[in-house]
């Protein structure tokens, strides 16, 4: 059952990923991308990582894709406004991506079963994750807050309009 589900999800994921690339309309691309994210979230659940699945849906399918949609709509992209890409550029991109694929497939093919000594049951549960995060990895958790702080300051600073400059 699980295996069948895995194949189904994988098929869907690959198909929708291909559709992202091949759709002519950028909005369709984004929508296909959302499907891809959902299928990957399905994979996470199969792997017993519920928390990750939820976060993945919220962050990627929710926040980031909405942002993408907005940007695409605001820019009003269509075929005419699309910047011309030379064939060499496309060719180079295909070669690079192909090489990366070869490397990854090659290296993954050689490995038998990936070692999983830390694979105790329920590692993906929210509870386990919370325990690890607030005990063992407390410090990085705090550092993450600094990371967000830096991002926030930067975003506010750059995003603020010039006019309000004097009033603050």
């Amino acid at each position, binding site marked *: 059952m699980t295996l069948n589900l895995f194949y189904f999800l994988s098929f869907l994921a690959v198909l929708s990923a291909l559709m992202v690339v091949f759709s002519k309309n950028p909005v369709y691309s984004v929508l296909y991308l959302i499907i891809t994210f959902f299928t990957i979230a399905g994979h996470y659940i199969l792997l017993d990582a519920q928390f990750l699945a939820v976060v993945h849906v919220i962050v990627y399918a929710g926040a980031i894709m909405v942002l993408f949609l907005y940007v695409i709509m605001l820019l009003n992209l269509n075929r005419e406004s699309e910047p011309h890409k030379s064939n060499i550029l496309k060719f180079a991109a295909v070669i690079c991506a192909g090489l990366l694929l070869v*490397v*990854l497939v*090659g*290296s*993954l093919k*050689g*490995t038998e079963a*990936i*070692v*999983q*000594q*830390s694979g105790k049951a329920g590692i993906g549960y929210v509870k386990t994750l919370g325990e690890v995060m607030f005990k*063992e*990895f*407390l*410090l*990085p958790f705090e*550092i*993450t807050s*600094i*990371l967000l*702080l*830096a*991002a926030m*300051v*930067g*975003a*506010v*600073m*750059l995003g603020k309009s*010039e006019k309000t*400059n004097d009033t*603050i």
Partner: protein
Amino acid sequence: MNRSDLYSLTPLLILSSAAILNFFSISIKRNHKVIFAITVLSLIGDFIFLTSYSLYHQQHIDPLLVVDGFGIFNIGLILLTTLVVALMSYAYFEQREERKEEYYILLILAALGACIMVISKHFVSFFLGLEVLSVSLYSLIAYLRTRERSDEAGIKYLILAAFSSAFLLFGMSLIYATTGKMDFGGIGYYLTTTQDIPLIMMAGLGMLIVGAGFKLGVVPFHMWTPDVYEGAPTPVTAFIATVSKGGMIALLVRFFNAINGYQYESFTNLFTVLSIASMFVGNILALRQTNLKRILAYSSISHIGYLLVAFLSGGSMGAQATTFYLVAYFITTLGAFGIIATLSDQHRDAELIDDYRGLLWRRPLTAVAFSAMLLSLAGIPLTAGFIAKFYVITAGIGTQHWLLVFCLVVNSVIGLYYYIKIIAVMFDQKLQIKSAKELHPLVYVISSVTIAVLAVFLFWLGVSPEGMLSLIDDVI
């Protein structure tokens, strides 16, 4: 986390408190002077606190960090560099219209990220430190929003840094998949148990190197360097050239020593190629430039190439040479960018070579200091750059890296050409009068004193490097 852990982390805590203090200060009243004072004082205080550690201090904060002599030394270097950047920023931002206060917060946070990086011994802390540094840098680079090129630089850096972070993460996860470990020691231990590295781990390490290569700006990942150097405000450029790259180098040294990466020929070959390519591409592209910031960008690419020669030598000699080179390079780069920052006016940076025509006759001391910095970059005796280059060549010859050393020598000569070209322009006799709006004299005093101190250090290290050599010897 116990008390001695906290004691060892105090320098980081001081930095974060300084950032928060700056927040409060801004929310009460925006005042450039106050923020500047808080920043400078906390950096100085932090450094003084740091000197209270013994050089043999060794505190493992498992599983993420290790505060040891090497880490303390590098934190000290980062703090002092940030201090110098802050000092030169005051005059630079005072003459500009933009809001200046947030700049210092971001600067402190970036320094904090770099500090985390140099004491990390785990992929998680490494990545977090790097991201704190990068995220702060995105907005620092685009800080002067009204200039058209700063947006471009910011976006370019954002995209490429995000790209390189993706590579780093992918590499880390591949390594984790093989070894089941994320701490450097664990990975090193895993490697001792296997004869040859599994292919998948090799791919992971390769991606790690790609990610690190982006941050360092080695060829072929150097594309962003000139544009970002040119578009960023000059003090930020100085920060990128020093702290951001130096932190990554320190981390690489720690990582490679932990996993004993020098024994794998595939890695040393890879780094050899990167090093030689960086030296040649950096120097040759620099020859045609007329923009000083771009010249320094290309020169920094080649300097990372030189640094990799020391890095490749491995062992304690290699690590010492790397560290000494970093110190010398930091001083020199800060000095050079500091001078560019001092000469800039509110509309644009003094970045064209023509801005420096006849500088010797207009501002003799500045010109002499700038010449000293450039000669140090070229590795001419009496300056720190010479001792550093000597150390690198010694490390290279000591480990029989003849090809690398020979390339280094050839490139020193190529590099010499564009360094002395700048000096020759400064010594040009045609006088060109340029009037700039005079700032408050104190502003110039701060910048001038900073540059003077840097120049003194430059000569001091060049003439009497023994103290620094034995200090580095002690921490490694």
